[in-house]
């Protein structure tokens, strides 16, 4: 077991206070030997240019920045910090490509998307390794979730490309033009797929900016666009930080803006483009409630809670970060949950047995540490299993807080890390009230054996997705998006086409 010795607190950054209790497995007899995924087949270039007009071009900007492996802090490659001229080139290329792409027979557009989907599958091992090295997520997740879902998304929207008039009967769907898309670092390739696939299927062209800390899978995707012989300019990818992103969304020739990321940045985008006539969809933060009733299948609920908050180190906008448990079963449920936490394997993200990988960046780690400290100060009780954190890289042990009040920061703010806040409730009404008592509304989970209660709860939850007896389950055909400060617009399903079409 990876989890053996007492954790050194200076690495976790969490001060050791008397309120921290620790548990762990008593006896270790079955050590899993390292089982690292091979990285020999992956070629990461030392420097990347920008993908504009169908090829990798030298940028105007002279500035570059490194992208590192958060598990080792070693440099993987250098990417361009694209400037105004670069962004303008990219938007011009997309604008130039728009007419012929929009006029292309829909079945031919579909063919390109099918081809991209197949190439994603063919290069899935390579993409999984790149995603894990650049972002820190466990290889089992990039291999089994990120990459297959990305390919599935292109496959799904390829099917819509020649059926748009059936998607919106008696309307005349038309593409909008150039879509400016800015995506986050938690699911780099998957968010790219969520953005690019519906845009292209609907006949738009795109300029996409991947997140500053995770640009590499987008660079591999650029190669895939070339391999698929996608017409030049249909997809353009510019790298950079927040400044580059704001240049993309505020460019006058961009007709549609799609952003996934923090609520704070989402608000600033909305302010920046107000009055410009650009269409906007935002997929922002969340503070989802995972609600466990006293008749729930407990062992599976524990798995759902673990999947809900510790999947991808909690870097998930729809993470089930607030556990609402019916008071009558809180004790046995927490006992099971704590035992389960002690079996989570934290370590090398490339190891096939790793459950918890590295935190994406130092900045994110500091944010998590700050919020966890606030939880301790406000009086919540922190539990972490005994857990060895690697010496290099950014790590945070799976954590849960009990004795949490609705008013604590850890119950209100999005932590975006492997930290669960546990609250209790007595009646279904109280559960609904507490679950909805948040500025966010992206997702929720309900665990009960009673079918009627699932429907009763789903009707009352102000959340874009309500999962019943499961969590974090995705399918390209299912729309995803938020209420309130979690954003607006839907991605996935037929709903996901709507933001990219003008319906006459």
């Amino acid at each position, binding site marked *: 077991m990876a989890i053996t010795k007492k954790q050194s607190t200076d690495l976790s950054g969490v001060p050791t206070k008397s309120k921290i209790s620790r548990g762990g*497995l*008593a*006896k*270790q*007899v*079955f*050590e*899993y*030997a*390292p*089982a690292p995924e091979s990285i020999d087949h992956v070629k990461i270039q030392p420097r990347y240019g920008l993908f504009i007009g169908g090829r990798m071009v030298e940028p105007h900007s002279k500035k570059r920045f490194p992208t590192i492996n958060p598990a080792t802090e070693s440099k993987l490659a250098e990417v361009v910090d694209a400037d105004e001229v670069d962004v303008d080139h990219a938007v011009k290329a997309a604008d130039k490509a728009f007419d012929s792409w929009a006029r292309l027979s829909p079945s031919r557009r579909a063919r390109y998307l099918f081809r991209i989907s197949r190439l994603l599958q063919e290069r899935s091992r390579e993409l999984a390794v790149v995603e894990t090295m650049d972002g820190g997520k466990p290889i*089992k997740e990039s291999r*089994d979730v990120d990459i297959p879902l990305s390919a599935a998304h292109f496959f799904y929207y390829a099917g819509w490309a020649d059926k748009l008039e059936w998607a919106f009967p008696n309307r005349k769907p038309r593409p909008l033009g150039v879509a400016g898309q800015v995506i986050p670092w938690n699911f780099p390739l998957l968010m790219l797929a969520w953005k690019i696939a519906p845009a292209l299927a609907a006949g738009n062209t795109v300029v996409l900016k991947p997140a500053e800390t995770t640009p590499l899978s987008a660079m591999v995707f650029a190669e895939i666009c070339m391999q698929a012989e996608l017409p030049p300019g249909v997809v353009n990818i510019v790298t950079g930080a927040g400044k580059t992103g704001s240049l993309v969304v505020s460019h006058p020739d961009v007709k549609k803006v799609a952003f996934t990321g923090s609520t704070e940045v989402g608000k600033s985008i909305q302010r920046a483009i107000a009055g410009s006539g650009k269409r906007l969809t935002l997929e922002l933060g969340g503070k989802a409630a995972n609600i466990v009733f006293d*008749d729930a*299948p*407990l*062992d*599976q*609920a524990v*798995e*759902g809670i673990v999947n809900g908050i510790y999947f991808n180190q909690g870097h998930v906008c729809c993470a089930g970060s607030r556990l609402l448990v019916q008071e009558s079963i809180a004790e046995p449920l927490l*006992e099971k949950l704590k035992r389960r936490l002690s*079996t989570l394997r934290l370590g090398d993200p490339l190891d*096939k*047995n790793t459950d918890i990988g590295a935190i994406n960046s130092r900045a994110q780690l500091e944010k998590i540490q700050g919020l966890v400290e606030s939880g301790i100060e406000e009086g919540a009780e922190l539990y972490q299993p005994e857990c060895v954190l690697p010496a290099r890289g950014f790590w945070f042990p799976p954590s849960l807080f009990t004795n949490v009040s609705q008013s604590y920061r850890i119950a209100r703010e999005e932590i975006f890390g492997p930290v669960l806040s546990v609250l209790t409730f007595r009646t279904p009404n109280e559960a609904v009230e507490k679950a909805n008592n948040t500025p966010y509304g992206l997702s929720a989970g309900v665990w009960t*054996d009673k079918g009627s209660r699932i429907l009763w709860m789903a009707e009352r939850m102000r959340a874009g997705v309500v999962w019943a*007896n*499961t969590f974090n389950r995705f399918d390209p055909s299912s729309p995803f998006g938020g209420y309130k400060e979690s954003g607006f617009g839907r991605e996935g399903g037929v709903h996901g086409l709507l933001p990219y079409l003008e319906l006459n």
Partner: protein
Amino acid sequence: MATALSLTHLGSLMRGVRSVDEVGADERAAALAKRSIKKSSKLWALDLAVRCMDLTTLEGADTPGKVAAMCAKAMRPKAGDATIPSVAAVCVYPLRIADCVEHLRGTTVRIASVATAFPSGQSFTPIKVEETEQAVRAGAHEIDMVIDRGAFLSGDYQRVYDEIVAVKEACGPAHLKVILETGELGTYDAVRRASILAMAAGADFIKTSTGKVQPAATLPVALVMMESIRDFVRETGRPVGFKAAGGIRTAKQAIAYLVLTYETLGPDWMTPDRLRLGASTLLNDVLMQIDKERTGAYQSPDYFTID
């Protein structure tokens, strides 16, 4: 020793058994099956698989000769290789116990006998009790009984419970493994109920299947049974063992059960006292994989004896 439960208590016990979500249990078992067990940990696991094995023959055609050969294999799984441990036990029909006694005298290999109208369990309780007593007298250290699925499925939990209590008493010093025959129970909820019932009635082990019904042992069923054991131990403090049987033919499958045990019940269950794998054809594949790990090359099946 379990104290007998009255009808009302038993009813409330069964009603209080928590439900199992099928999708979630399947997912968890599938996730654990993806654990990658390599090199030193693989060798350790393969060695444990041998030590936890109940080498089994349950055919109408079993003869003293067949059983003698199996006993030899049980004691020394690989001819000329003393580093391979003996298996935990042999598992035979009651009439073959005497043959085992003769061949296994003075060894660590236990003798397990099926009993109680194996495999259907559709016979009279006194006959089942008598069969158990005779099997123990003949020299069985362990009794693998079947539950009366007819009674269980018709909701007559009392009958199932009483029968297990009676057989347990007839076992005397012998260990009792209770076969649930999960392939006939239909749902994971029923598997969980049957597990709790058998443990409450005094089972030392709960066991998935007879091997005569498909599906036999599956990973999700094993997970549900292990989670039941975990909850039972938490409630009562009495540890109960787990035995998977039927359909386990490859070392890879065996390792998946070990991983499941490790991550569900913990290291204390990684011992033949609490974990068994019942199999007739698994052993040679495990031996072949051990050789492969040690030498880096697969040997021809001709180097592994078929007994």
